[in-house]
């Protein structure tokens, strides 16, 4: 890949990933209507755990669910989609915008997530 393509694809991937990951973490629950994680992992089932496609809530038989791997997988797909779209756009102007958004979006995602997680600290 040449520099011009990477200059758009890599930042766009990071932006797409963060834009999906932050709400995915925040809005996933056992009763969510939209399946943010691509799959759910149940670590207490058998010797190696068990994978189920999409969002599956925990239960007495399956044990606690882990959605983190599934969020990463979903966010990776969204990031790749962003990267492909960015590669189709005109290079110079998009490159400049992405070079700014690539650090602003993760900071905003951190702030969004930190605000969401205040509940753990009773603040």
């Amino acid at each position: 890949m040449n520099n011009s393509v990477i200059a758009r694809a890599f930042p766009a991937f990071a932006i797409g990933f963060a834009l999906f990951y932050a709400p995915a973490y925040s809005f996933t629950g056992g009763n969510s209507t939209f399946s943010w994680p691509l799959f759910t992992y149940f670590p207490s089932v058998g010797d190696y755990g068990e994978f189920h496609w999409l969002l599956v809530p925990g239960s007495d038989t399956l044990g606690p669910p882990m959605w983190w791997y599934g969020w990463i997988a979903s966010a990776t797909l969204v990031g790749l989609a962003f990267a492909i779209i960015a590669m189709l756009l005109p290079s110079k102007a998009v490159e400049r915008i992405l070079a700014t958004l690539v650090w602003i979006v993760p900071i905003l995602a951190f702030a969004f997530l930190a605000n969401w997680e205040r509940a753990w600290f009773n603040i």
Partner: protein
Amino acid sequence: MATFLLILHGICALLLIGAVSHQALGVFWPRRPGQTDFVANARGIRPQIYVVPIMILFVTTFVLGAAIYPVYRVYVRPPLEDLRVLYGIGLFEIKENFAAIVLASLPAYWYFWKRTSDYPTTRAALTAIVFVTVWYNFIAGHILNNLRGFG
């Protein structure tokens, strides 16, 4: 096995802390000509040579952390919930989220350090994001291990 991986995870994190700290010092507080003391020597580095080691260490630490995460979910988190030590869970939740977002930013971090001399602000900002995340995750991991380790 989980304890071994946890120790390995901690050792990789320690090496990563060193690398990101050197790089951040080199970017935000570079050594001035004539300064020769210990701290100045820690600052007097070429930040770009740390990029690939930081990426390798970050990915290694991340993969090790992801591998032992199920043990945390089954054996560590439930007792913390029972004891209402919720801040410990909160610290870990922030850690996993920051780590995932920074992991996805690494290709861009590599590009802005290695393939272009444009966008110095972006380069500095990404360096700061990696630095803050690695330090936060290191401290949060230690606190959590002190609250309830695998053993």
